């Protein structure tokens, strides 16, 4: 066997085992989520939005960004069969815009939350386990970040970021979400890992001479995962709210890409004569976050975790 062939074999077997593991983890996730009513409803709503985010651009009946003379003839028409959510002030089909808008908000929030959770987990578990001055310094830094209200922090970071760096605003928002949520995540995960650390099986690992990475990833992390999971869903709902708020303030994704927050903001002008322009994205927004919250509640109940988060 040539080395190339063996490399291909190993990588395909690794890929298969990862995919199998991934699928089984996903199935496990679905089964936990569907144990309770709220979990099932939440999962359903979230899945719909998720599918829209991925495949949305294929199913929009009209182009969400079209801008032409023909459109302008249909401005601000109420909900009809042709336009179930009506048209906006530029004659664009609101339904299409809402479907298309799912993509940016879902992607940005999901990736931003993942980033925040990842950073928070690494910092939280390691500094919780190591203790000492490493712990002190990282927690002080987190405290400093926490001394800003999160929206304020986000606004500042975006403004500075947009001024100084020339990156796509989606990535900027993702990074901002990650940074803004990292401190709270790290505190929660740190306190969870502090409850795991004194447990005797961790001490047994020390007695076996296990290296740090083993203790952190194979002993502590699996037992902290439920907490991380619930935290992730909670943060996701905050991230969605934050992204929408930023959009509303005009600091989110820029037009012509549809953004729910911005759509609501634009629709304010026509509130009395054409409320559907603002209400449709609002409805979509609200349903998504409700779905995420229901899912979080469902998972929490299924895993029988306490409802109260300390700090």
């Amino acid at each position, binding site marked *: 066997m040539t080395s190339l062939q063996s490399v291909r074999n190993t990588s395909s077997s690794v890929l298969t085992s990862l995919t199998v593991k991934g699928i089984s983890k996903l199935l496990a996730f679905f089964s936990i989520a569907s144990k309770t009513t709220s979990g099932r409803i939440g999962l359903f709503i979230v899945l719909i939005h998720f599918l829209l985010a991925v495949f949305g651009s294929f199913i929009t009946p009209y182009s969400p960004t079209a801008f032409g003379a023909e459109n302008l003839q249909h401005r601000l028409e109420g909900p009809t069969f042709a336009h179930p959510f009506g048209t906006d002030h530029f004659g664009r089909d609101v339904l299409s815009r809402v479907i298309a808008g799912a993509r940016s908000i879902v992607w940005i929030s999901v990736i931003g939350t993942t980033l925040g959770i990842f950073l928070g987990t690494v910092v939280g578990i390691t500094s919780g386990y190591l203790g000492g001055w490493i712990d002190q310094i990282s927690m002080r830094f987190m405290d400093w970040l*926490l*001394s*800003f*209200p*999160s*929206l*304020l922090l986000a*606004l*500042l970071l975006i*403004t500075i970021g947009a*001024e100084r760096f020339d990156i796509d605003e989606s990535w900027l928002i993702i990074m901002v979400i990650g940074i803004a949520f990292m401190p709270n995540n790290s505190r929660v995960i740190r306190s969870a890992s502090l409850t795991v650390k004194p447990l005797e099986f961790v001490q047994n690992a020390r007695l076996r001479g296990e290296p740090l990475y083993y203790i952190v990833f194979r002993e502590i992390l699996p037992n902290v995962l439920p907490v991380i999971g619930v935290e992730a869903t909670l943060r996701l*709902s905050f991230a969605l*709210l934050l992204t*929408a*708020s930023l959009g*509303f*303030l*005009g*600091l989110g994704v820029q037009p012509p890409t549809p953004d729910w*927050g911005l759509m*609501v*903001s634009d*629709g*304010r002008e026509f*509130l*009395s004569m054409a*409320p559907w322009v*603002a*209400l449709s994205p*609002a409805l979509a*927004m*609200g349903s998504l*976050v*409700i779905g*995420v*919250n*229901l899912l979080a509640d469902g998972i929490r109940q299924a895993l029988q975790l*306490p*409802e*109260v*988060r*300390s*700090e």
Partner: protein
Amino acid sequence: MGLDRHPVERYISWIGNAAQGDLGVSPRSGASINEMIGRRLPNSALLAFIAFVVAVPTSLAAGIFAGIYPDSRLDRFLSIGSLLTISVPEFIIGVILMLVFSSKLGWLPSSTIMLPGETIMSKPEVLVLPILTITGALFAYILRMARANVMEVMESNYVRTAVLKGIPMRQVVMKHVLPNALIPTITVIANNVGWMFGGLIVVEFVFAYPGVGSLLIMAIDTRDMRLLQSTAMVIASVYAFSNLAADLAYGLLNPRIRYG
């Protein structure tokens, strides 16, 4: 204006001035930043204060009731209601309220247009919608916290002791459940107050309310860095202050900390 000096120098001198209370002048409008903030800060404070005073006692009471009688009809109703309010961003709540009360019913103004010389107190109706919006979100949040904490305390051994002493339920709740459930609730609320500050900023923007929040947004829109810096600093300081106050209050309330 000293723009010829090095940016770092300018920044340092700004800090120095700020420490003395002089925030300088906005390069865009030429107006004094001190004056702008000074005019708007009391408005924001008024808004926050009233929202707090309205939201906190009602939500605590509702949360306590829901915690003592979980799965009652009122509890279910409150749970669903709070889920909705928490899930919907403040600006959407604000817009919906605007739609209902302003556009359709015409009872209240949709934005706060103040003529020079007018103060909030002279046109109190502009306060209603913003306060309702903030209160809605706060209410839901506090309700959930209070409910969860009360439920946890109801399961504790000392509540069992109290019940098995033959004391009437009302007394058990007042003397044993509440003192121990409220302390962690108030702490968590106090620690998460920062999120309410964020909500304030958005709400002020939605209703064009003349407070520091909308000033901040204005600074961002016009890329007025100096105004942005100053406003952000003021907001952050007030936030830090309120956190400190909350910590102190917690220390006073918890007998373990008070008596060591």
